[in-house]
């Protein structure tokens, strides 16, 4: 049973903006990256899944509850860390997180106990008794994470959790997210426009663009081999490509690189490697590298969102 499933989910805002456009997706356990450019519909999707805003059409289920009618049941078991600042400056982290635990429906004693636990898990110690107003951005992000975690949710939505953090803070936050997904057994949906970060924490990716599902798959399959060989040479690679094509291979030159289709070799990969070697020697070229070409996460958006940017 997926933790989240949507079917033809569409959200149109009054002024004609379509934030989600027939999105159908299923999301399961682990750390899931929800990637897309700013404005791709990530935050809108999270708000619909939390039952905070209604969808224009389509359905969404979270933990088997209908987001349109059972929002309260969902929100009791789900944690949410918004993108923007959301902390009052004049209370301590302990007070604030305890209060938020109680507003999640926890009894007072349990709320205090779990607040202490969770603040320790996110790495706030003595400073938790100080007023939040004096905290650094990194500490505030930790408080935001703690309030999302304090009621022991089954599922966590983190919207751009590394926003405003310096590189060190970013690393710590990503490590924390990984721990939550792996050690705490809480499914985490991380929305981000930073592919490099998502690559580091997520095992599964959901890529959306302009409110449409671009692709959903394991991280590995996003970056798997493409079945092409990338050959980089010191000199312009045109002649090499010509020789390879003459041997019956599919090869395209681009500046100092040639991309050779491995499947086009009649005698398997090794024959292609041999052909490349022989032709490079024959042309007396200097070889810089030969490698299997892999998909890059960015490729997704180059093909998906590229048209729009060009228009």
């Amino acid at each position, binding site marked *: 049973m997926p933790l989240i499933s949507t079917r033809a989910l569409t959200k149109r805002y009054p002024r004609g903006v379509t934030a989600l456009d027939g999105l159908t997706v299923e999301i399961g356990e682990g750390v899931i990256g929800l990637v897309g450019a700013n404005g791709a519909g990530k935050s809108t999707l999270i708000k619909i899944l939390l039952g905070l805003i209604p969808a224009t059409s389509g359905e969404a289920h979270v933990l088997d509850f209908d987001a349109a009618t059972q929002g309260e049941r969902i929100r009791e078991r789900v944690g949410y860390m918004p993108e923007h600042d959301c902390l009052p400056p004049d209370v301590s982290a302990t007070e604030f997180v305890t209060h938020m635990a109680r507003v999640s429906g926890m*009894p007072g004693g349990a709320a205090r106990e779990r607040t202490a636990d969770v603040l320790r898990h996110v790495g706030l110690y003595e400073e938790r008794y100080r007023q939040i107003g004096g905290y650094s951005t990194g500490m505030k992000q930790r408080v935001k994470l703690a309030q999302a975690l304090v009621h022991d949710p089954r599922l966590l939505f983190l919207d751009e959790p590394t926003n405003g953090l310096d590189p060190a803070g970013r690393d710590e936050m990503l490590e924390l997210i990984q721990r939550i997904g792996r050690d705490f057994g809480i499914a985490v949906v991380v929305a981000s426009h930073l592919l490099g970060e998502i690559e580091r924490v997520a095992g599964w990716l959901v890529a959306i663009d302009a409110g449409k599902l671009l692709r959903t798959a394991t991280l590995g399959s996003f970056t798997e081999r493409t079945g092409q060989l990338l050959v980089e040479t010191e000199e312009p690679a045109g002649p090499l490509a010509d020789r390879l094509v003459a041997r019956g291979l599919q090869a395209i030159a681009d500046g100092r690189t040639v991309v050779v289709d491995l499947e086009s070799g009649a005698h398997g990969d090794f024959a292609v490697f041999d052909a490349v070697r022989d032709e490079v020697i024959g042309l007396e070229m200097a070889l810089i590298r030969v490698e299997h070409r892999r998909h890059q996460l960015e490729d997704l958006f180059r093909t998906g969102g590229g048209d729009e940017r060009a228009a």
Partner: protein
Amino acid sequence: MSALPEPAGTIYDIGYRHYEGPRLGRRGATGAIVGAGLRAVFGMGRSARSKIIPWGAVILALLPAGVALAIKVLAGDLIELYSYDSYLWNIGGLLPIFVAAQAPELVVNDMRHHVLPLYFSRPIRRVDYVVAKLAALTIGLLALTLLPLLVLFVGRILAAEDVLAAIGDEAGALPMIVVSGLLHAVTIGSLGLAICSLAARRAYAAGAVLAVFLVGSVASQIFVEPGGTFGALAPFLNPLSVLDGARQWLFGGPVAESPVSSSGAPLYLYGLATIALLAVSWGILAVRYRRITA
């Protein structure tokens, strides 16, 4: 690997523990907001300075009841300083001060620092949040609008020579005490919260609340003097005289100093005006909180 000593201050990670206990849902969550709101209203868990106005107001509101009881005990029924009818009108000035000081605490920072999305992502609805805040302020106001009159009521019975007879004498006032106390607390609480919900900072909210009541009070006193149609409508400028008029409409018992007595406007109009005040306040709150993006 050499066995290095653990750095001082290391906290051993005992691992993440899941929570298996009860979850109180929407009702528990709303109750938690009311509870936290009441603490805010009375400055609990805050500096001594933030307790001065709420507790000072409560003490001042109770003072006439205390004085009246003391006189009753010492001098018998010779003089009656404070009647049930005039009590709220006489301490009325404390209500705007209490609201101006404490209502901004309830709503302004949540709005200003964008805390509301954190509330709304929990098992409550938007309306629960508003109702909980209103309940906290109303309960707080009851310490001014109901508690002193109940003290006076109980005190007068206990101070009487024949307690049983006194119960019979006083009991007739109880519905007025309770209904009027509730009506004052709910209406002034709603109006105060609505004004505060529109303010960007706590100081502006406090100023706006004071301005509405002060301007209303002064204007109603000034305009009621010349009489005529204008004078008859003057009490409607002041929420406190509107409420006093509504009380008189429901239970009778005019108060000499209130502009309601000098205006001559039919009393049912005060009832309608009270309903209008509540409707406008709740309307402002509904629109304001619907427009917050989650």
